[in-house]
Structure formats: C-alpha cells, structure tokens
C-alpha cells in the first residue's frame, strides 16, 4: 500500500505540472522564413511575409506587443495610432519608408522617449528582403505601402552577392569609416551623432590608445564607467567590418581627440 501511495504522489505531481504547462498559452519560437522575392513581388505578398516575420521569427512582438518595453506598433501608442500613420512624421525630412528602414538597420538611432530601452533587434541576422518585408508590413498598419519591387530585387541581389565578411566602407578617412559603420548612431563627435554611448569628443584624453583599440576589437570586454546599461549593445561584428588599416586609422584619430 505504501508503494502505491508513493507512486500515486509521484505520478500525480508529474501530471499536475504537465497539465499546467499545457494549460497556459502555447508559444513556439518559429524560424524566420527565408524570402526569395523578385521585382514583380506584389504588395500583398510583401505585407503577408512581413506580418509572418513580425509575429513570428523576427521576435518583434516580444517588446512591441508589451507597452512597457516598446511602443505597440500595430494597435497604436499614446493615442497616436498605429505605426503606419505616424512613421512619416517621426523625423523631419524623412519619409515613412526611410524612417522604418533606418530604425531596423540602426536600432539605436531613434529611441522613443518615455523610458524605453534601446531596440535590441539584430538586423544583421536578417536578409535585406526580410527587412523590406517588415517595412512593408509596418507601413501597412494604417499607412500606404511604398516599398517597391525594385528595392526588393536590389536587396535580393545584394543578399546573394554580399561577401561573407568584409569592410563596410572602403575609405580610410576616419569620418567616413565612422559614418559607414554607424558609429555615430550612438557616439557623438563635433555635434554629429547621438549621446547614447561615450562621446568621441575628448576620448584621447580619457583613455589610452590600447584601450581604444581593445574597445573596437572586443566591445564587450571593458565598459566605460556610467555606461553599464549599454553593455552588449555595441555590435561585436564591428572588427569584421574594418580592414587592419581602417582600424589603425580609427584608433589614431580617436586617440587624437583631446579635451
């Protein structure tokens, strides 16, 4: 009898846990669908593909479905309506399509005010076509889809011919290197850029040359004081996007930025 009671307790406990786990919402992490569109892709196809990515493999709803983490893009935010109705007015002089595309390619560029965290979307693991599909879907939320087949086809060609890794820009001019690698999306230099990460102004007087080099090669190794909350934000792929010469140009330039 004792053995039966023990078995009953064990099986019963397991059954309760299994039941609870099956009673809650069943969320599966789906694999982002590979897209192969050409220039004759229809608007409906793009929007549908974008919707699937947005609600599934791209993981957008993790934050944009919860208003505490990021603005809700589909149902509206702060009485402003869905993203398609407001994306064209977010940045003066920038249309909706450009704004949305830039927001994804450079997530730190436009952090909405209101205590939100910087966007953690990793554009580098998505193809150019997938990004355009997401843009089309977001435009469709109350707005007009202006993504063209030509843009999609160009992105598809770029995806197909993109080198496995290599410099983002060919220039050896430090400013062009920084602009081409989106460094100024977070760092400020002579009034250009953003104030999210430590400014490039005066960097040479704050840290030595080796520390600057280490900061580029291994961004997560040492975090500047007061910027702990941004740990992990600087893309670790930066060193893969620079040539050895560009790296040294950049290090020399930043080391020369005195007070």
């Amino acid at each position: 009898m004792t053995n039966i009671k023990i078995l009953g307790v064990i099986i019963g406990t397991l059954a309760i846990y299994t039941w609870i786990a099956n009673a809650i919402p069943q969320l599966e992490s789906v694999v982002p669908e590979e897209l192969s569109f050409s220039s004759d892709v229809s608007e409906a196809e793009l929007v549908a593909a974008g919707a699937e990515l947005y609600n599934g493999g791209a993981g957008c709803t993790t934050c944009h479905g919860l208003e505490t983490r990021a603005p809700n893009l589909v149902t509206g935010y702060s009485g402003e309506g869905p993203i398609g109705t407001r994306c064209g007015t977010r940045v003066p002089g920038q249309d909706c399509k450009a704004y949305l595309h830039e927001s994804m390619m450079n997530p730190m560029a436009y952090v909405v005010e209101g205590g939100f965290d910087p966007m953690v979307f990793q554009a580098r693991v998505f193809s150019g076509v997938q990004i355009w599909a997401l843009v089309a879907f977001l435009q469709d939320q109350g707005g007009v889809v202006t993504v063209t087949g030509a843009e999609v086809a160009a992105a598809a060609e770029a995806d197909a011919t993109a080198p496995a890794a290599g410099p983002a820009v060919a220039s050896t001019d430090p400013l062009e290197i920084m602009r081409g690698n989106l460094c100024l999306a977070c760092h400020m230099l002579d009034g250009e850029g953003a104030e999210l990460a430590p400014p490039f102004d005066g960097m040479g007087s704050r840290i030595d040359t080796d520390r600057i080099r280490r900061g580029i090669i291994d961004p997560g190794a040492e975090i500047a004081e007061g910027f702990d909350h941004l740990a992990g934000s600087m893309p670790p792929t930066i060193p893969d996007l620079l040539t050895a010469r560009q790296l040294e140009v950049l290090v020399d330039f930043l080391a020369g930025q005195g007070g």
Partner: protein
Amino acid sequence: MLERGRWSWLRTILPVGVVVAIGLLAIAMEPLAAQSYTPREYGDFPVIGSRAAIWIAAQLHLFFAAFVLGVPMFAVVAEAIGIFSSEERYDKLAKEFTRLLLVSYSATAIWGAILVFGLITLYPGLWGYLAEIFAPSMWVYVGIFFFESFTLYLYYYGWDRWKKGRAKWGHWGLGILLNVWGTAVMLIANSWLTYMMSPPGEVTPDTAPEMVQFWSAFANATWMPINIHRFIANIVFGGAIVGAYSAYRFLSAKTDEERAHYDWMGYIGNFVAISALIVLPFAGYWLGREIYEYNQQMGTTMMGGFMSWLWVVQAFLIAVLFLAGNYYLWVGMGRIPGAERFMPYTKWMLLVLLIGAAVWATPRNMIANRAEITAMGGQFHPFLGVLGVMSAKNTAVNLMILTTFLSFLLYRRANKKAVVSWEKRGTTIQGALFIIAAAVVLFYGVYGYFVPSIVRIGFSVYQVLAVIAAIILVVLIDIGMMRGAKSRGEIRWGEMPERSQYALFILAVTFTWLMGLMGFARSGIRQHWHVFEVVRDTSVDAATPALGYASIVISACVLIFLSMVTFIFWVGGLAEKPVISGVGAGAAVSAPAVMDQEL
C-alpha cells in the same frame, strides 16, 4: 592440373577473361570512386525524432550527473563532521550516501555514452564543429573521468580499511579529490554547452572552427555563471534525492530504530537541499544578468518572448519547493521539545510564502477574451498587471527566501535556551537585520518600476546582497548566542507523521522537474541556432517547441530517471544492507550538538 588438349582453350581464354572481368569491374566501380564522401548534417531517429531522442539522452545524463556530483559534496562534509565530532553516525551516513553514489555512477556513464553516440549519429555536423574547437578538452575530460571513477572505487571500498588514525584523514582526502575530479569534469562539459549559448563576439558564421581560439571559446560569457549555478543546483538535487530515498526507507521501516535513522537522514537531505536552494536564485540572477549583457535580444527572448510563460510555471514550482520545505520543517518541529513556543508564528510565515508565491506566479498578460479585455480596460489587468513584472517577482522571492531562513532559525533554536548575557540584545539585532533586509528588498522592488529594464535587472543584485548579508550576520550572531546553550529536551527522531515524508517525495519530483524545465529554458533561448548566431539549425526540428510539448518530454525524463534510480537503489540494497546509525528512537542525541554541526 588442367588436362592438355581438351582444356587447352581455357588456358588461353582464362587470362583474357580475367583481364576483361577486371576491366568491367573497374568501369562499374568508376562512378563509385568518383563520388566523394559528403558527411550528412542530420540523422533520423524513429518514432520520436532526433530532437526528442537527444533531449531525453542529455536530460537523463544530466540528472544522473547532477546526482553523482552533488552527493559527494555532502558525503565528504558528513565524513568531516564525523571525524571532527567523533560521532560515528555521521561517518555511517557519509558511507550510505556514497553507496547510493556508487551504483548511480555507471548509469551516468551509460547515458553519457548514449548522448555522445546520439550526437555523432543524429547531429554529425554540429558534433564535428564542436569537436574541431574542443577536441583537447574532450581528451582531458575522459582522462579526468577515468581518475574520478577509480577515486570513487577507492573511496567507497576503502572506507572500512582506512577507518582509523592517519589513514582516515587519507580517506577523507580521497573524498575531497573525488569532488575535485567531479567539478573539473563539470567545468569542461559546461564550456561546450555554454559556447553554444554565448560564443565569443569575434566568432561569426564565416569563422572556420579551427580558427576559433580555444580559451576564448572555453571561458565564454556564460561559462562561469552556469558553473556556479550548476554547482549549487547539484547540491540541491543531491539533497532532494537523498531525502526521497530516506522517506522511502522511513515509510517501509520495520523498527523504531530504523525509522529514527531515516527520519534523521531525511532531515539532513532536506536541510542540504533547502539550504542550497536559498542561495540558488542568487546564482540564477547572475546568470540572467550575464545573458542580458551578452546579448540583450537573447535576454528579452528569455524573459519576455515566447518563453515568458515558462517563468510563471517556474514560479509555481519554486512556490511548491518553498512550501513543501517549510511544511516539512514545521511538522518536524512537532518532535522537538520547546518548539511549541514558535508554532504561532508559522501561520504568518505561511501567509508570506503564499502571498510571495501568488505574486511570483502572476502573469503579465492575462488569458482573457475580448469582453474581459474591455472590462479590464486594456491588455493588462490594472492591478495584477503591475504584479506581473520582475520588480514584483524579485521582491516576492527574496521575501520568501528570508521567510524560509527564519523557519530554519526557529527550527535550530527550538530546543535551545541561550545562557549568554546578551541574548535579548542579540535577538533584537537579529530581528532588526531581518527588517532592514526586507526594507531594502521592498525599496528596490518599488523603485524598479521607474527605471528601464536593463537598470532594473541590476537592482536584483542589491536585493540579493541585502538578503545574503542578513543571513550571514544572523547566523554568526546565532552561533555565538547559542554557544553552551541549555537543552529544552532531546529531538524525538522517528516520531514524524507519515505525511511529512510525502513532502520529501514532492520536493524530489519538483526539483527534478524544475531542473528539466530550466534546461529547456537555457537551451531554448538559442532558438533556431545550434550555436547562437553562428551555426544555424537547419533540421526539421529547428523551431523551438512550446512549453506543452516540452513538459511532456520533461515529465517522461523525470519518470524514467526516478524509475531507474529506484531500481538502482533497490539493487544496491541487495548487495549490502545499510548500516543503521546510533540515532535511537526518541533519541539519544542532544539537539544542540546536532544542530550546531548541521547549520
């Protein structure tokens, strides 16, 4: 010999025929020779599929590994207590722990072999990639495993031979060595799995595995947090399984003496498990923080993405652990003279635990239909939605930890009467430390609502430090205060209601299930990557399954594990009857001596 004339034509034709045959064979073989061997990326496993097969093998290997790593830790501590206190029952207890260990060891190795062969045959591409990077550590691993096995044999079979004098110290040294080998094995294996979670930033999909720097891959971002988390979790797990073993023996005991022994053993198992459980969430916070710092998207997926509901289930499981552990202690106080003065407090402690469990298990998003959402005024419940965020949950679990620690403290002091002059002042300071720690926890819990999540997650560190500091200081004061304390009576070992033993079974099942669930969480946050953002999973099982499916696999693993453990313990019992220690029923052991050594 061929006959000349009649068979002479054959002599001519035969060489020609052989040449032609060889030529034809060569032509036939040519396409085969031209085909170069291309290794396949994935294999198939019948009925349950490759993913489930590897999952089950890995999980069972880990269950057994956790047990054989956790038990030596407190076996060696129990042996040390026996040496220093000259109480032989601790030595016997340590030996009985080791006997359980011995028979579990081969099961660990068998499941390890099944896992490796499973990886080689079902995931050869991934296995080849990992082997390319980690080959040297794999050789070291098997070498250490070899030494560990033979150290264990020496430790167990030499127990009675090296029982006295300096030989006993040598034997204890073997126990320590066993733990060193076991920990080294764990550290190596952890590096492989944590690399899959958090490969170094310089490793990209285009990095050839032979170009990955070994140490950079080995000591990756989540390696040390996982090491610490697993080290503590193994102690919890070992304690829980020993507790269940003792409960089984207690329930089937034929004599009072046997019942007293297994009551005591069960208490030790529960004490070890709950003590380690108290510090386990702190290691969990660190791991979570490192995951966030490594990759914020991974952290967000873990806490707010498709896995967000997993933490509601985890909260329920941990609530069960705290409630069952405390319940066992409170019931156990019934056999301690003097404990009745603390019993009125238990209902308040229960209230804190229940409120804490309710807050921790509150989901952020309610399951609601359209009408209910309208009635709530939005997706989030105006009151419950506030309790569903990490600020509230961290606060709840820290207060639950403090409450459980208070239960232990009351249990420890139950039959003691302090004789030091500063007893009243000491108790007041202890009370103040509890209140200060609770206040710090509550302050950061509320403040956390007003800052971004990356800042908020850092607050958990301050909450944890306040609780740890309080625990350490209270224990230090208590040790001083109870020095030379008078006994209010002896613990009546064995006089424990049967229902308390079922709490030990629930603890063991819940720990085991929770371990499986956390394994799913750790592995699942990689999503469709074998190695996060480096090696993509292109198999048919690339999508990470929902919790319902995972729970079925976990339950199956727990059931297989417990069945095998039962069988192994039964087989072990056939070979040698356990030695019943001198913990007599109604008990010849003075509680202060026992508790001083145990806490």
